[in-house]
């Protein structure tokens, strides 16, 4: 590998965005669940729902802060490492980013203050309103950033111009840019993926309590509602994925061909369940359903699907890598459907929380890692599948880098990010672990715990 600015910047971007993307889906997913739990508290007035709401708020907080901290890097990395790209797309890509700040981040961060600290400060109705606003803000933020990314996948409503010696794309129609062909379907796909991830976190922690036989009522109620969200979301995902695939086949045929390991253009194109593609022999082997890909794309087993041979090899993504990440994501999606439907059935038969099925509960504890993985793999497929383009068909990734930075500089920043993020990741896990072990009974954060000497307390603040 050539350790130049391009390679290092790609590694750095991949590393920082993948680390960041652990957190926002949890926030979006937990946000929805908090709205449900708190609404139930306001409707039923039952103490148990207050306990549930307040506990998950604490988990939400720890997660949100790392998301914000790692997110600020993303806002500026387009300028630091990809400045030629930034000049090229600024007219278009900058707008959704600015809109995200004005419409989503202010909403989210403002009401977050009430969500986190306002339980005793504001009326219950106002608190619920704040919770809804935070959840809505996180979804809106997802909307604008997916819009920006989708324009890179399916660019429309632009002109290429040269201003002051800079080649760039400018918007011709703002709303056509916002609702570009892949924007809405990808936005839905991302949000539902986030709901699955958030629901699996709640199920994981609840399953831990159930296996330990502590906080049983709390855990069962939390689990059952999260399970409902996870099951509905998992079931919806293949349909959206299907709509998405049709758009990919139309706008990014090379990407679809790589997803499916399709080298030759053919009718009755097969759909691989799993397999291996060899770029040297240009063959894909594995278990496939004949004609299924043609059917999914065209609704017709005889539909023609373009293979990679249609495109110059320099325009191909890394075929086997994309094939594997895409197929693993799909397999995980299928697993979520199976597991959540089985669990729903057991819940309906009042068997889910019985000792007979405790092995299933045990599996739910580590299972939270799977939707995280699936969401990551989805983005890896989307972004690597677009290569070698940074903006599909308009600008190559190699053309997008900053001209004024050097490889050693990027190496320094990359090492810094790796060190800091590893530290953050383990601290985050540690803090979550502590919160979970304290459990919902532990609502006080232990004022001044650990400071036993009176002189250190400086009890000079008189409460009113």
């Amino acid at each position, binding site marked *: 590998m050539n350790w130049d600015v391009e390679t290092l910047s790609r590694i750095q971007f991949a590393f920082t965005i993948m680390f960041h993307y652990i957190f926002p889906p949890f926030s979006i997913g937990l946000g929805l669940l908090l709205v449900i739990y708190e609404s139930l508290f306001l409707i039923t007035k039952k103490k148990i729902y207050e306990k549930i709401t307040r506990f998950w708020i604490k988990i939400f*907080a720890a997660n949100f*802060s790392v998301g*914000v*901290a*790692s*997110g*600020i890097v993303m806002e*500026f990395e*387009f*300028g*630091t490492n990809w*400045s*030629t790209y*930034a*000049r090229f*797309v*600024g*007219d*278009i890509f*900058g*707008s959704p980013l*600015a809109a995200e*700040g*004005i*419409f989503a*981040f*202010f*909403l989210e*961060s403002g*009401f977050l*203050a*009430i969500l*986190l*600290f*306002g339980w*005793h400060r*504001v009326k219950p109705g106002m608190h619920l309103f704040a919770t809804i606003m935070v959840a809505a803000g996180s979804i809106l933020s997802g909307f604008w950033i997916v819009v920006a990314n989708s324009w890179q996948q399916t660019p429309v409503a632009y002109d290429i*111009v040269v*201003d002051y*010696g*800079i080649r760039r794309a400018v918007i011709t129609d*703002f709303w056509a840019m916002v609702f570009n062909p892949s924007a809405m379907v990808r936005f839905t796909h991302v949000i539902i993926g986030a709901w699955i991830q958030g629901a699996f976190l709640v199920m994981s922690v609840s399953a831990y309590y159930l296996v330990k036989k502590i906080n049983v009522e709390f855990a069962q109620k939390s689990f059952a509602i999260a399970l409902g969200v996870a099951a509905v979301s998992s079931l919806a995902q293949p349909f959206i994925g299907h709509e998405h695939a049709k758009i990919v086949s139309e706008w990014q045929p090379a990407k679809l061909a790589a997803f499916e390991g399709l080298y030759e253009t053919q009718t009755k194109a097969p759909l691989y369940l799993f397999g291996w593609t060899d770029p040297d022999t240009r063959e894909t082997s594995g278990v496939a359903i004949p004609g299924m890909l043609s059917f999914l794309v065209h609704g017709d087993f005889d539909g023609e699907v373009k293979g990679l041979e249609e495109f110059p090899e320099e325009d191909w993504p890394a075929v086997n890598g994309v094939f594997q990440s895409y197929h693993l994501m799909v397999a995980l999606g299928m697993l979520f459907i199976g597991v959540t439907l089985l669990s729903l059935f057991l819940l309906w038969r009042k068997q889910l929380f019985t000792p007979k099925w405790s092995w299933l509960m045990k599996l739910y504890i580590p299972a939270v890692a799977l939707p995280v993985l699936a969401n990551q793999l989805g983005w890896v497929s989307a972004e690597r599948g677009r290569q070698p383009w940074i903006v599909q068909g308009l600008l190559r990734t190699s053309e997008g880098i*900053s*001209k*004024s*930075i050097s490889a050693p500089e990027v190496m*320094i*920043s990359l090492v810094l*990010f790796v060190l800091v993020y590893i530290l*953050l990741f383990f601290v985050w896990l540690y803090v979550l672990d*502590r919160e979970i072990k304290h459990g919902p009974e532990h609502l006080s*954060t232990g*004022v*001044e715990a*650990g*400071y036993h000497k009176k002189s*250190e*307390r*400086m009890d000079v603040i008189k*409460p009113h």
Partner: protein
Amino acid sequence: MDFNVVWYILVGVLLVGYAILDGFDLGVGILHLRSKGDHDRRILMNAIGPVWDGNEVWLITAGGALFAAFPNVYATAFSGFYLPFMVLLIALIFRAVSIEFRSKEPGKRWRSFWDGGFSIGSIVAAFLFGVAIGNIVMGFPIGEDMEYQGTFFDLLNPYSIASGFFALSMFALHGGIYLNMKTEGELQKQVQGWIKLNYWIFVIFFVIFSGMTLYLKPEMIANFSFGKIDLPGNKHELVENHETMISVFAWTVVVLNILAIANIPRMLSKGREGWAFISSASMIGAVVMLFALGIFPNLMVSNLDPKFNLDIYNGASSAYTLKTMAILASFGLPFVVSYTTIIYWTYRGKVKLDDSSY
């Protein structure tokens, strides 16, 4: 007035908002290690607890707005300022997570570690903001292709370092004046002691730094001179046509700045905590506006050739985008103001710790 000017003002508004609001968060961070004892440090951290996150959004939105409205400036500035900027990002990361994690564990070592992260993160961030402003005044080696041509060490010139210390003293003062509103009793007395010291440190830096600016970069007051001082290179027609108006406005800001600085000790001695804060906020707003007026209509000055300056025209997006985004922003900003008002109103008054505090 065209939309390029509108966006210069809008980005300026976002940066003024950021400097005033996150300015006191940074200031509290700078002062944090000077308070002793767990209880006091919790009070300090919780004084900004509910609001710091929203305050940081002003910076993120300013970044987005710069990207949308002046992509060439966004691209040149951040790639040219690469390593200091990465350090800034890491400082802001530490500041953010330290606030969240500090009180999660009772252990003394755990808490001192995050106290350090919070304070050092704030100090580094405040200093680097100053260094960045200093470099904008001194100019960058920007070439014909709009790219930064210098090295990392060009960014560390004496003026910019002085600017870094100036920013540090300004935010430390502002943070103290904010804490004066949020604390009571002994702690408040302690805070007032810090303010007295920081005020004079700030005034000294202010005088030195203003003098350095006038001596090293007399061009900075061209827009204040009613056309008496000429900039090297061609004068922008926008400035040419509105010389009097721009200069009158600029002098108004200068007067406001001096009045605000003078008003701070007056209000403090009268015990008017809120008014002292308003004075301090006006002072910061005025300082940011003075820089903006000094370089207008440029956003980044090239010290190779004034022809290579990035201004509100060659740095900007297309007229259509500027117009569309201005309309969108005019829908959004009233909402932003209303959320901000609700939050500050909800958390008005002195800090009280409860079971959801940090």
